């Protein structure tokens, strides 16, 4: 049978954001996939020319609607490196706390969307109900639900009181209990397994070669997590990357599911070790030189390249987001799969198109 060309997206029920794939199919088996991006390009990097380096924190936060706090963290780390600032220990821990809260809510959001992608809508609602508890934690501690605006050059803008910390720990117990209750549904259910096990296999060699990032990389058996480099307070916390070896949709689900518990554990460790002290140091001077700053987001490694020339405005801001790195592996997974599995496969890389196009 001759090949048929089928456009997938940019408007598709499974995609919250516009990603277009041109699929060449033969007997409903995908033979080739060609991506087309650029539907939500906003030119945020260019804004660095008319917004000073402090205002840019709140602009880079808006690169992503899910992991905003980590974007600001990565950017601030870069500027601090350029200025030679030493961030107080308490600020480092608070940054870690907010980042891990973001990881929990992002993974819960993804698990819900993933369940919805294969038609399990009631499971989607269960995950999102749990997620709402984490959103409340963020709103109470930072003032906003998603765009937290807590990072600043030299530290953080808000503190977490002992009373709030206790409430967070109590809520985390509930989040842990409720997520565990759904474990067998998402990981052991025969119908769910039919849609995930053995689908979209990305081998270890291919994952490495194509430069996959985050859970997509770790599900293929490569134990690489940027948190191991010890930015913020991660060097003082005890954790190991969650690794699976199968490289299929199921393995990627397992990695994200386990990372929720890893994040809860990291939060408990961070609260136990939270030191007293200042929240921020006053920045002196202007950013000069160039730096690459890296942070592990829920979707993988985000990379910021910043170049300053001793002026208020940065010369260049370049953002490489994890979804950008995960698109080549996605194109490797798609050939050979059923047309019906394409939405599920796309979701397993946890695409964030706004991030990718900035």
């Amino acid at each position, binding site marked *: 049978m001759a090949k048929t060309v089928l456009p997938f997206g940019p408007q598709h029920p499974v995609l919250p954001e516009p990603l277009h794939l041109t699929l060449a199919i033969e007997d409903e088996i995908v033979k080739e996939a060609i991506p087309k991006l650029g539907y939500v390009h906003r030119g945020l990097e260019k804004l660095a020319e008319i*917004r000073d380096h402090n205002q840019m924190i709140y602009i880079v936060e808006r690169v992503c609607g899910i992991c905003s706090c980590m974007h600001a963290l990565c950017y601030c780390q870069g500027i601090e490196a350029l200025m030679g600032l030493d961030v107080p220990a308490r600020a480092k821990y608070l940054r870690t706390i907010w980042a891990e809260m973001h990881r929990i809510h992002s993974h819960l959001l993804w698990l819900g969307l993933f369940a919805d992608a294969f038609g399990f809508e*009631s499971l989607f609602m269960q995950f999102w*109900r749990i997620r709402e508890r984490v959103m409340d934690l963020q*709103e*109470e501690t930072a003032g*906003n639900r998603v765009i937290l605006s807590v990072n600043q050059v030299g530290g953080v803008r808000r503190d977490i009181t002992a009373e709030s910390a206790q409430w967070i720990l109590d809520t985390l117990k509930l989040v842990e209990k409720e997520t565990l*209750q*759904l474990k*067998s549904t998402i990981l052991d259910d025969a119908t769910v397994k039919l849609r995930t096990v053995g689908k979209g296999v990305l081998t270890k060699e291919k994952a490495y070669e194509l430069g996959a990032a985050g859970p997509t990389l770790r599900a293929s058996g490569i134990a690489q997590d940027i948190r191991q480099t010890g930015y913020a307070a991660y060097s003082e916390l005890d954790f190991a990357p969650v690794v699976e070896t199968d490289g299929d949709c199921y393995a990627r689900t397992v990695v994200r599911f386990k990372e929720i518990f890893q994040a809860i554990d990291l939060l408990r460790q961070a609260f136990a070790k939270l030191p007293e002290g200042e929240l921020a140091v006053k920045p002196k001077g202007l950013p000069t030189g160039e730096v690459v700053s890296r942070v592990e987001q829920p979707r993988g490694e985000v990379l910021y390249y910043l170049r300053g020339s001793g002026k208020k405005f940065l010369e260049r801001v370049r953002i490489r987001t994890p979804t950008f790195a995960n698109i080549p592996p996605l194109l490797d997974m798609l050939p050979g799969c059923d047309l019906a599995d394409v939405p599920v496969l796309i979701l397993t890389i946890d695409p964030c198109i706004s991030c990718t196009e900035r």
Partner: protein
Amino acid sequence: MFMTKTILKNLLTKYATRLYPFQKREPFKHSKGELKIVMEKCILCGVCQMRCPSQCITVDKQAKTWKVDPFACVYCGVCVDACPVKCLYQESLYRTPLAEKDMVVHVQQPKEAAEPAAT
């Protein structure tokens, strides 16, 4: 099959959602909501205008006005932190929806005029 326990539990517990207009959640104490100003305290220094990442604030020293575009405000609270006399604050609730776009303009009354009125 594995979902049965969760379904039964859901049937026997109360709703996860609220009947919104009738039942409202109290906002968190430190939520970042609508931006407000105590105009009497304002010294029209313009720091808020300089720091605002969305450039929604305009301060005019000559006309003694402080303007904010509530539709451009991103609720980051940078102006509130930066204000040297702490005349800015954020409500814990978002602004109410409006049918038309509008600027919020505050004019500072001259002190001479304000003082006799107070006595």
